[in-house]
């Protein structure tokens, strides 16, 4: 029987692997011919990144050299693109007119890089990253030095940028999303990756949309972003994705979706034609990684050699980034969902973040950064669907630990460890050193063990082990310590510790804090995120960018949500003083927007209740037009300064209490604080402004101003305590701002001033406020912070900021008849 003719279009990884699979099963079955558009032998495309970075040479990534083709009697038509498939005649036709007949045809034509249709995309120096020609173009550009911009912060884009940076270019990655490799990484891992790339000379600009490519003399000169920024560059690489190459298949009349549609036997709609690799679409998925290619080729090898029952059922994907010294792994589900549970481990000292997602007792996915050694093991567990419930406690520590402790009760496991077993990896402390110190020095607490041995003193991940050693050594005498109250269930650290480290370690983002303090959840919760956001705002005024998604709704939309989902709007009335013009404007707004309720508040303001969310910007626009700004009645920040009429009108008034109240409010408005802050200024001890139940109150007397702090009149009723007395109005303002700043810096999130005062003691507050240098420094920090705070959030939103917050996503559903 004469041999059947097998023709392969595509001399890439898929095409050659398919041939290898066929040859391995039945070397004599086919007469094989391969067409390759690139004039080269078969090479390992996924290793192009190391070639770019100079860590490998082209020769090192060749898979099959010419001898291989010859040795297997394969005809290689290299550098010849196929232009047509005649499915009726079973012929393929190359660009030079060569016609080759086939019995079986394999399409392995891969994919094309997506080119963004930006103005200037045709300029010289604008390339994609797909084949060796692209690499050579990049190497040539890098030799000339200068700056490179890479559009796309996915796997390929980052590898391109890293390679260019290694070759001496200044590389900047422009990414549309706010997390690098967002299809593989969560926010925490993305943050660490960004930091690691920056250490390697790759800058990243996230959330940035490209607008146009700029050029001079036909060559690329820069990239303009939608926000107006321009990034100069001499080379621009587009790495924004791939599109399956379906041109030939479509012309031949094969079924096409996103790619060439194949069944579980890799067969296209023509039973003699098969498709594999990145050009194929299987069960609705077109893959862009190498592992599925290997799986597909295995099945195709079976099918072409007679085992037609063999079926490809899709691939689970794992991703590793090829950047030296940056260990990144991602597989499967890396985000939670129904029935999913996260196990998170962070080691700030080593820059490690691991997250394993467990679903129904099985590993459903993993993201690893900094230590990806166990990636393969998690992937195997995922693929095999093994039940991991019994090893859940140790799973996150990896295969070695888990296998060693499998089926052992943790307490017994610790008892069974040899004295030489290392307990604390950070400081290299063995079990024997710890138990020895406990016995010799009579240690009874975790703190004492930390002090004497350094065990668990760094990252703290071995704390449970050290506690178990204490329990084993001391028996009943050991009690687990209760430290300061943690911020929330996501961490073991308290508020003070967290705040201190934000400042000491220069932590400037929520993911940075979570990594440094080893948060045990991937992205925190509704309790810790707003707290951290506030701590960052307070620590880095003018520098930290507020994260609105970490804010409670009221502070995000700058109005108070009501029980029916409408909002209330309270314009600011400085010191509680208003005018006919303001009142008229308010009345007009009420009429215009049919606002159902108008109410005078306890803080001397007017509250407009029942405003629809969509109307908020328009309501604010009208109030702005009459000179009114947000009253921040929704804020963990300065709310109202309530005043009495004071010496200007009142026959008992001793000072200008209204004037002082207005001055305080005009200086302090817009400031964010741990919890709401209300002030009162009374012009005499009769206290008509009820200043002695405010967070901070002033009682004016003939000889000056009494400054009071720590009042409350809510759930808890408490009169203020007197902090100090000052002679002049200026000094009153300085003192009040200083104590507010102290509270801003020391208070725990959601802790009102009276609670803060009870915690730290009035004396400690007074000691710092009465020290003139300290008071001055506090005041200066407050004043600096206010430079960035006294901005009307309403006016910003009237001007269009965060418009998506106020508009529905779509109104199309309203017109659908149910």
């Amino acid at each position: 029987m004469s041999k059947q003719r097998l023709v392969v279009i595509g001399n890439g990884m898929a095409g050659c692997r398919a041939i290898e699979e066929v040859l391995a099963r039945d070397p004599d079955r086919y007469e094989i011919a391969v067409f390759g558009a690139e004039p080269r032998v078969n090479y390992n495309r996924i290793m192009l990144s190391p070639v770019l970075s100079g860590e490998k040479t082209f020769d090192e990534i060749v898979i099959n050299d010419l001898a291989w083709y010859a040795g297997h009697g394969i005809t290689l038509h290299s550098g010849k693109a196929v232009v047509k498939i005649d499915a009726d005649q079973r012929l393929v036709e190359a660009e030079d007119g060569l016609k080759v007949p086939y019995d079986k045809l394999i399409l392995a034509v891969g994919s094309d890089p997506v080119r963004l249709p930006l103005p200037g995309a045709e300029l010289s120096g604008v390339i994609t990253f797909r084949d060796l020609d692209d690499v050579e173009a990049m190497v040539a550009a890098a030799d000339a030095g200068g700056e490179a911009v890479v559009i796309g912060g996915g796997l390929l884009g980052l590898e391109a940028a890293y390679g260019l940076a290694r070759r001496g270019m200044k590389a900047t990655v422009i990414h549309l999303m706010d997390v690098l490799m967002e299809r593989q990484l969560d926010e925490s891992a993305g943050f660490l990756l960004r930091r690691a790339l920056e250490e390697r000379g790759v800058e990243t600009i996230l959330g940035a949309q490209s607008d146009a490519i700029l050029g001079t003399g036909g060559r690329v000169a820069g990239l303009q972003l939608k926000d107006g920024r321009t990034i100069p560059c001499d080379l621009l690489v587009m790495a924004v994705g791939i599109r399956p190459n379906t041109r030939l298949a479509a012309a031949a009349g094969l079924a096409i979706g996103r790619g060439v549609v194949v069944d579980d036997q890799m067969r296209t709609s023509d039973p003699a034609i098969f498709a594999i690799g990145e050009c194929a679409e299987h069960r609705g998925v077109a893959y862009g990684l190498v592992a599925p290619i290997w799986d597909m080729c295995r099945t195709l090898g079976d099918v072409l050699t007679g085992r037609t029952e063999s079926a490809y059922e899709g691939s689970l994907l794992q991703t590793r980034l090829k950047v030296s010294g940056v260990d990144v792994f991602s597989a499967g589900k890396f985000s939670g969902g129904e029935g999913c549970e996260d196990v998170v481990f962070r080691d700030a000292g080593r820059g490690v973040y691991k997250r394993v997602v467990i679903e129904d007792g099985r590993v459903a996915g993993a993201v690893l950064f900094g230590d990806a050694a166990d990636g393969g093991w998690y992937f195997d567990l995922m693929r095999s669907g093994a039940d991991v419930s019994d090893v859940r406690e140790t799973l996150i520590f990896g295969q070695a630990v888990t296998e060693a402790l499998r089926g052992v009760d943790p307490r017994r496991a610790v008892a069974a460890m040899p004295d030489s077993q290392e307990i604390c990896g950070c400081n290299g402390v063995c079990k024997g050193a710890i138990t020895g110190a406990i016995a010799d020095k009579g240690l009874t607490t975790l703190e004492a063990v930390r002090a004497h041995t350094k065990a668990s003193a760094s990252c703290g991940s071995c704390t449970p082990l050290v506690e178990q050693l204490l329990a084993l050594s001391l028996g009943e005498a050991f009690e687990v310590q209760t430290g300061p109250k943690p911020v929330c269930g996501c961490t073991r650290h308290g508020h003070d510790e967290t705040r201190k480290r934000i400042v000491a370690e220069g932590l400037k983002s929520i993911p940075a804090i979570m990594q440094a303090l080893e948060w045990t959840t991937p992205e925190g919760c509704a309790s810790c995120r707003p707290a951290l956001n506030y701590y960052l705002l307070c620590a880095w005024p003018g520098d930290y960018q507020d994260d609105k998604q970490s804010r409670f709704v009221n502070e995000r939309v700058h109005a108070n949500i009501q029980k029916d989902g409408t909002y209330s709007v309270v314009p600011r009335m400085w010191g509680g003083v208003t005018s006919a013009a303001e009142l008229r404007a308010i009345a007009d707004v009420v009429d215009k927007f049919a606002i159902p309720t108008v109410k005078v508040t306890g803080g001397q303001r007017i509250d407009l209740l029942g405003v629809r969310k969509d109307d908020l910007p328009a309501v604010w626009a009208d109030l702005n037009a009459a000179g009114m700004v947000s009253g921040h009645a929704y804020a963990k920040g300065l709310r109202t300064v309530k005043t009495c009429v004071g010496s200007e009108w009142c026959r008992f008034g001793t000072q200008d209490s209204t004037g002082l109240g207005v001055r305080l409010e005009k200086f302090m408005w817009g400031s964010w604080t741990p919890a709401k802050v209300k002030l009162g200024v009374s012009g005499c001890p009769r206290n008509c402004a009820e200043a002695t139940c405010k967070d901070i109150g002033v009682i004016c007397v003939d000889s000056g101003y009494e400054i009071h702090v720590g009042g409350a009149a809510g759930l808890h009723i408490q009169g203020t305590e007197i902090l100090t007395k000052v002679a002049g109005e200026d000094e009153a303002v300085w003192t009040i701002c200083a104590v507010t700043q102290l509270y801003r810096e020391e208070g725990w999130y959601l802790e009102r001033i009276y609670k803060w005062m009870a915690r730290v003691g009035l004396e400690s507050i007074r000691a710092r406020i009465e020290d003139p240098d300290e008071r001055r420094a506090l005041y200066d920090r407050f004043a600096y912070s206010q430079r960035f705070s006294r901005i009307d959030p309403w006016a910003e939103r009237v001007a269009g900021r965060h418009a998506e917050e106020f508009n529905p996503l779509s109104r199309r559903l309203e017109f659908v008849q149910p």
Partner: protein
Amino acid sequence: MNALVKEPMIVWIDVGAVTDIPRRGARRVPGPAGDIAIFRTGDGQVFALRDACPHKGGPLSQGIVHGASVTCPLHGRVIDLATGEAMGADRGSGCAPVVPLEVREGRLFLGVARG
């Protein structure tokens, strides 16, 4: 199929792009039977629920999204975005109905039953 039995038909309606929703955020889609909330998690997953907390009807679209859950802005119920069920101590106390949602080429399609 029996032509006399009218099958309920799902109509898929394009309501916008996935990227129109902020990460760890939500947007509303008003509809004849009340608002629908579409959520996008920090990891980029999207979910759609009726925009009403099972507790007192609070607009879930206005809550803080963390992981695959949202905390209701009115009284702090934590709702599982995948099921609409209350989580933690409130488990079993009710559920915000899930609305069919599909993502095609980066666009969001809400499924509406008709007929």
